[in-house]
């Protein structure tokens, strides 16, 4: 769901909006991610610890959110190439178990060293309706 067809990718133009990807990272995903990377900090699962750290509740790790942006790029264009670059700035916390919407806009279509590249501006909107992550990605098309 959300994957563009070869025809849609060929017709992409700068300024095009990509299908919004809605994801609700639950505690299971957070635990899986943190368990794999060895980064299980208590603000990710303990409400009291999260409050003490100034957070409104257990939050989704920033690294996991960055990989969720990678997942969005991979979903949109991955079938036609591979994700080369993802960059994120975390502006606000996203609470575990709350929906987040990942939206992308084609910023530039160009070539580098004979490779066709698509740059995409990405924004994550959290459950409160505010942007929580500003991101940028590049997909190299085959």
């Amino acid at each position, binding site marked *: 769901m959300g994957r563009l067809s070869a025809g849609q990718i060929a017709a992409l133009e700068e300024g095009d909006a990509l299908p919004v990807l809605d994801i609700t990272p639950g505690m299971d995903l957070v635990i899986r991610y943190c368990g794999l990377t060895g980064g299980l900090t208590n603000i990710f699962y303990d409400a009291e610890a999260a409050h003490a750290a100034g957070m409104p509740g257990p939050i989704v790790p*920033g690294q996991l959110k960055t*990989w969720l942006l*990678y997942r969005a790029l*991979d979903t949109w264009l991955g079938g036609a190439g591979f994700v080369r670059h993802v960059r994120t700035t975390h502006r606000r916390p996203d609470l575990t178990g709350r929906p987040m919407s990942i939206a992308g806009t084609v910023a530039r279509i160009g070539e580098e060293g004979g490779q066709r590249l698509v740059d995409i501006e990405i924004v994550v909107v959290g459950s409160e309706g505010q942007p929580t992550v500003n991101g940028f990605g590049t997909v190299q098309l085959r």
Partner: protein
Amino acid sequence: MSMPEASLLTPEIRALIGTGNEPVAVTITPAAVRRSMRAVFGEIATPTFAPGEEVPGYVLIALQPEGDELPMPDLMPDKLEVSNEIDIVRPLRMGETLQVRSRIGHIAERLGGRFGYSLLIRMDVEFSEPGGAVVARFSFTAMQYDASAALDAPGDGVEPR
């Protein structure tokens, strides 16, 4: 702890910049692909990949070293990730062995924002071919701060409760 009386960036702390661990060999295996994809998608049936076949970049999650292997300074009571960067130079392939090394890329002070004085510490992770060519990089920047010094007004960075 609020605004410290002196900079926490002492010569000893600055000397940590650039330090890191020795390269470690990691291999892209079906288990690494499966674990990494389940860390991003949840419980899904992961596709299988033949030796030499291109695998999703997610596999790097399962191959990265744990951050606590580095001598990361622990100077303030609270920590939060503020920015990340992933670069993948070329597709990764099932069965290939890479060298991975991590280092402290940068440490800086920051004034202002909701939490006032804070420190920004960047960890860089690099994956290379045995011949030395870099195939992927991560950068993770974490903020160390004092939540008890938080302002109750929106600011740059993490918003108030």
